């Protein structure tokens, strides 16, 4: 059990999302950085879909209410347990009364807090994610507040501390976050100059960015065609261009239908990188084809598998040693 002492009002309980209800107009929700969410679970030996607390804004302060193991993964945030600095991806034991503090986030935008078996919130429509607009799921359908108590869904195992490597959102040596995109239905309706700009220039994440979507700022994108589109399904990763010519990436809490022209869509295996992008960060869009998207999906599966099995293996060895 962990008590929330202070926390900016944007943290929500999430799992890998509430899929299967698109036909009823229900968005996916789920962790904005599914990679860090999974790591926070695997560090504890949880299932990857166990609920974690997604924290997009710090500083924050928690008190351990009862001896427990817990985990953290995602952006570095100067986490300290009773003043002792913790690695950014870490799981280990804590004693009742100990204080967990999170400071300034660095190099990312979200950190995930995990508990044994996941955070104990009810499963609604197949998921424990918070549906913020509809006000259900997660922790009472809302953001976490000071005074809230996070309970573990399973008893705390006896385990020594463990850490892991987790990639950052940027390629080695790059200032920009690079996102691989597929062309979408209106890509060819944008002027050649706009397409060149979009697929080569950097776009800055503006402060008007949240779980619904990120508004970007960069070279204006002009569509040669006119006329409104009929509303159609949209999904996280779609890059829409409203009348002003500045793109928006729709994300985990996006609407399920929309009608703005679409210049591209970010592939699923790169969405976690957007989840770690902060206002002021720069994004670049690399145009790929579906064969490359297929390969990226396979690579992602290999990477995730390697992380999961290495954590499970070390967890097993630690048990043998102790």
């Amino acid at each position, binding site marked *: 059990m962990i008590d929330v002492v202070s926390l900016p009002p944007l943290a929500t309980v999430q799992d890998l999302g509430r899929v299967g209800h698109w036909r009823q107009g229900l968005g996916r929700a789920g962790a904005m950085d599914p990679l860090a969410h999974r790591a926070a679970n695997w560090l504890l030996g949880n299932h990857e879909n166990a609920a974690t607390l997604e924290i997009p804004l710090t500083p924050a302060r928690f008190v351990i209410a009862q001896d427990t193991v817990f985990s953290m993964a995602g*952006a*570095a*945030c*100067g*986490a300290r347990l009773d*003043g*002792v*600095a*913790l*690695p*950014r*991806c*870490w799981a*280990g034991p804590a004693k009742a009364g100990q204080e967990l503090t999170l400071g300034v986030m*660095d*190099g990312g935008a979200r950190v995930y807090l995990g508990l044994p078996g996941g955070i104990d919130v009810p499963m609604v429509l197949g998921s424990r994610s918070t549906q913020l607009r509809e006000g259900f799921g997660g922790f009472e359908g809302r953001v976490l507040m000071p005074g809230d108590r996070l309970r573990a869904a399973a008893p705390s195992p006896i385990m*020594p*501390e*463990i*850490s*892991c*490597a*987790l990639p*950052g959102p940027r390629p080695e040596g790059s200032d920009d976050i690079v996102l691989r995109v597929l062309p979408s239905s209106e890509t060819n309706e944008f002027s050649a100059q706009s397409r060149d700009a979009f697929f080569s220039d950097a776009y800055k994440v503006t402060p008007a960015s949240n779980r619904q979507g990120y508004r970007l700022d960069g070279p204006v994108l002009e569509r040669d065609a006119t006329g409104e589109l009929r509303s159609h399904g949209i999904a996280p990763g779609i890059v829409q261009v409203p009348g002003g010519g500045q793109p928006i990436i729709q994300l985990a809490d996006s609407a399920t239908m929309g009608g703005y022209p679409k210049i591209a869509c970010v592939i699923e295996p790169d969405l976690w990188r957007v989840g770690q992008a902060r206002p002021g960060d720069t994004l670049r869009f690399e145009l790929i084809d579906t064969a490359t998207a297929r390969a990226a999906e396979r690579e992602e599966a290999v990477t995730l598998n*390697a*992380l999961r*099995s*290495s*954590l499970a*293996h*070390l*967890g097993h*060895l*630690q048990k043998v*040693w102790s």
Partner: protein
Amino acid sequence: MFSEADMARLIEVMRQTATTHLTVEGAGEYLSLGLRPAGSASARAISSAPVKMIKSSALGVFIHCGGDDGLQKVEPGARISARQVLGYVSLDGARNPVRASEAGVLKSSTPEEGQIVGYGDVLFEMECDA
């Protein structure tokens, strides 16, 4: 009857006054204390700041802290607080954190980044606070 604290205080006084031999009488007992002459640095280091070796608890690849983990880099000479993470022994991406057992000053960091270390290999030496 002399307690350990009494003896520690006496030794401290002997050091300060460069006394090498001291006999004390009290409560029907004699205590005779001998100290090696001052000036020997190693003797001072051993007695005033015990050096502690931090060893690997596992077989794996050694990784310094301060790389991708959001922690400060730790160089020899740096002050170390108790329980501070100093590095990791890594196995295929999963990492065993290596911590200082107590506060002090880091003297040396033995393995190179990426070096394979075995169980019991010395990873760090530190001078613990007296």
